[in-house]
């Protein structure tokens, strides 16, 4: 996989509305952020896979701003597949984003840049 261009390919997926992560064929390990090899093992047999999108908030902060700029959440989300991602949990008050909250990924845009964000999962919902 010496022709892998992880940053460029990840960005192209995002522009296409898809959140993709990498997985090593030999070790089965999931990789995020995108790299040319699995961290630690150095395995270069990485392929793109679509994660389930399910995750849990591992840590969260509210970036406070002066009006009129709204406060916003920045979170670290642990994906069901294992890797952690930085993101924003949207659709609820930024101060209500608590560690342990179940969330689901989707591709949106932040200030015009495509980005993976997370919505809270309604308890008992799908």
């Amino acid at each position, binding site marked *: 996989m010496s022709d892998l261009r992880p*940053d460029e390919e990840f*960005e192209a997926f995002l522009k296409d509305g898809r959140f993709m992560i990498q997985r090593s064929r030999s070790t089965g390990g999931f990789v*995020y*952020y*995108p790299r040319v090899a699995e961290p630690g093992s150095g395995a270069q047999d990485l392929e793109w896979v679509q994660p389930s999108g399910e995750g849990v908030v*591992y*840590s*969260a*902060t*509210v*970036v*406070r701003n002066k009006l009129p700029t709204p406060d*916003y959440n*920045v979170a*670290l989300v642990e994906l069901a597949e294992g890797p*952690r*991602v*930085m*993101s*924003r949990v949207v659709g609820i008050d930024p*101060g209500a984003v608590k*560690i*342990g909250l179940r969330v689901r990924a989707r591709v949106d845009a*932040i200030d015009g*840049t495509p*980005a993976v964000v997370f919505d809270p999962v309604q308890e008992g919902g799908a």
Partner: protein
Amino acid sequence: MSGFPRGRTAVVGAATFGMGEAPGHTSMEMLAKASLAAIEDAGLKLGDIDAVFSTLQQDPLCAMTAPDYLGIRPKLVETTRTGGSSFQIQAMWAALALDAGLCDAVLICYGSNQRSAAGGLMRTSITPFPYESVYQPRNPPSSYALAAARHMHEYGTTREHLAEVAVAARKWAQLNPEAFDRRPLTIEDCLSARMVSDPLTVRDCCLVTDGAAAVVMTRADRARDLKQPPAYMLAGAQATWHRHILTADLTTTSVAECGPRAFAQAGIGPQDLDVVELYDAFTINTILVLEDLGFCPKGEGGRFVSGGAIAPGGRLAVNTNGGGLSCVHPGMYGLFTMIEAVRQIRGDCGERQIAGAKLALSHGNGGVLSSQAVTIFGAQETL
């Protein structure tokens, strides 16, 4: 075998310049002023310096800039770029290089006019990391906030615990004429302060100041004949576990690995230290690093610092200059923890002097808890 030349080198000169504010000065001018003062403090001449380990935050080629300005043609230069911990790592390399005979007198120096020149945090030309930058964390505070929030969740650490760190630092600063912020500060002040990135308020964040510092190191045999009581370098160890908070272990720093290595080099344990000078860019740093150095079990740092335990008169003397929170923080603070460790060993600290201090730890932190480095210095009788 620890691999470290314990006690075979020493800091023999130490100086600061422009602590807090130095309007009208460039960073290079400040570095030079501190350097010349440190060389004079040692009783050496500029021409004695044959190795220059220099750091200017915004100058990737500062290894050459500083020697050029000072008129030195060094045999050895070094510019570790691990942010605020660079200086502890440079001291480690300096000890090894001196002991190997590659050079005879190392100048480690730093200067920053960030407060006066930029009116705030310097924006260094760091390549943006797209997997974080698109979400616009307010860095560095947001990264440390994510660590603090996780520590609070896992261990029951509270905002009052964080405030204890800020108040203790301020009380030490009030004993230090060189400290920039010596105004009264209470726990309540911290709790009601403006939130920057939850759970960190402006009082949980370090100062944004100007400041320059320099130290001179030589081999121990030469150190004994110089002007000042030598602060012998007993240990120097670093560990780097991540760059981005995305890949960080949020509640354990790499001090948990390099701290024990440093203690083994020095042949002491944490309980033997008289003073502990930690890189407190944020209040959570002090709590994390006290745990990772072994002063208390993991998770107990908040309770450990409670009740003024690390303030003057407390059970452990931590950040006796007032720290990055209240003394000085000119972008990179690491060299200032070393200066304070050296001054405590010399007995030069006036009102804040820890009586009979013989063993002092100087810690550095760089990036977003990314690089950690621990150095230990001792007086003659610790050899």
